[in-house]
């Protein structure tokens, strides 16, 4: 069999894929909020913009995240934590993506990380990347995937921890082109 080719998500994905976030009268299967007040783990917010080759923030991108829970489990059966989030950049005035989640634990001996899938108008095939955490220096240095990335590009995968009045925020921009281009993986 041959894989079915990919096509761009286009500019009008919002009412199909994230209708509640965009205030359409239809339910969503996922949103930017992955946790409840009873989810175990450290509550964190992940925020950033998707920047094009001219440095402009892209307002019609869709970011999906996939992560383990605070025990390092994917698809935990015993909790309300789904581990999957989806957010379009069209509802924030600064075109940010915003995820309310918890910090994942280490999986398989890897440094804590989140799988990130990037879609947008103008991207014919989605892009895969990973988010790592700035306060995990020791773990990051040992990570088998991070260590396949050239030294000078590793920083593009590391979200910066900030303590704010609203709680812990990890700031992380996704840069599509140029000097600071985010590392994308052939997954």
């Amino acid at each position: 069999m041959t894989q079915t080719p990919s096509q761009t998500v286009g500019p009008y994905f919002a009412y199909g894929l994230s209708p509640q976030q965009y205030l359409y009268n239809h339910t969503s299967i996922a949103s930017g909020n992955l946790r409840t007040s009873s989810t175990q783990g450290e509550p964190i917010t992940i925020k950033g913009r998707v920047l094009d080759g001219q440095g402009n923030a892209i307002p019609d991108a869709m970011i999906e995240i996939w992560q383990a829970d605070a025990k390092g489990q994917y698809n935990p059966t015993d909790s309300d934590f789904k581990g999957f989030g989806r957010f379009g950049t069209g509802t924030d005035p600064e075109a940010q993506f915003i995820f309310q989640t918890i910090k994942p634990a280490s999986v398989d001996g890897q440094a804590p990380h989140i799988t990130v899938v990037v879609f947008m108008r103008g991207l014919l095939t989605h892009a895969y990347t990973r988010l790592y955490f700035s306060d995990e220096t020791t773990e990051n240095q040992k990570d088998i995937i991070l260590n396949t990335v050239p030294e000078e590009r590793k920083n593009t995968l590391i979200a910066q921890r900030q303590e704010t009045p609203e709680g812990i925020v990890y700031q992380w921009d996704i840069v599509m082109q140029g000097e600071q281009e985010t590392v994308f993986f052939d997954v």
Partner: protein
Amino acid sequence: MNHNQRDWEVHPPYLYPDYKSTVFRAPSKPLIPMKHTLSESTGPVYGQDSVGQFDNDLTKNGIRNGEPLGERIVVSGRILDIDGRPIKNTLVEIWQANAAGRYIHKVDQHNAPLDPNFFGGGRCVTDENGRYTFMTIKPGAYPWGNHPNAWRPNHIHFSLFGSNITNRLVTQMYFPGDPLLQYDPIYQGVPEKARHLLVSQFDLSLTQPDFALGYNFDIVLRGHNATPFENQ
């Protein structure tokens, strides 16, 4: 090529200058190959409980005061993995323009009428044979700003999860014989040998007599038995 990897001979490249938006959005550095770990051999699971009663019937899920306008069609097909095995209980999400070629999205300023009874979004979960089925309205073609007199062929957007996050696929289904396909850089961005895989087939067995025409569109995702580190 490992059969769990993306087949770059069928997927469009990131940079395809005829599709202008790719120019400043395509990653410019080579992708870094990644071994599959547990993070890649898992993925979100959305079963029947994520689907509401009329979610797979776009002729009903947006009704306010009457039937939506346009040609009713059945769109159905099987979701298979690369070895031809059906992927059962997997979520299929779709969205599309109405019969006049207009999206309800606020950004869509095309001068064609909205249909008060058509929402244009739907989802369903595949059955034991990997089959999905939607009832909908045939979407219209619509103009876009890519180049002078640019029109998108009739199409339905599809989003699939498959059995792990590496199976994720967003694509578009087209209709047989559409004269706009040859002019559409989004469709033409797909390597030539694979373009036909995005064109549905008219299928008399899927039609509903006196009610709706039927189109079949099968989708093939990647493998689903990835063993962590098998590429080492």
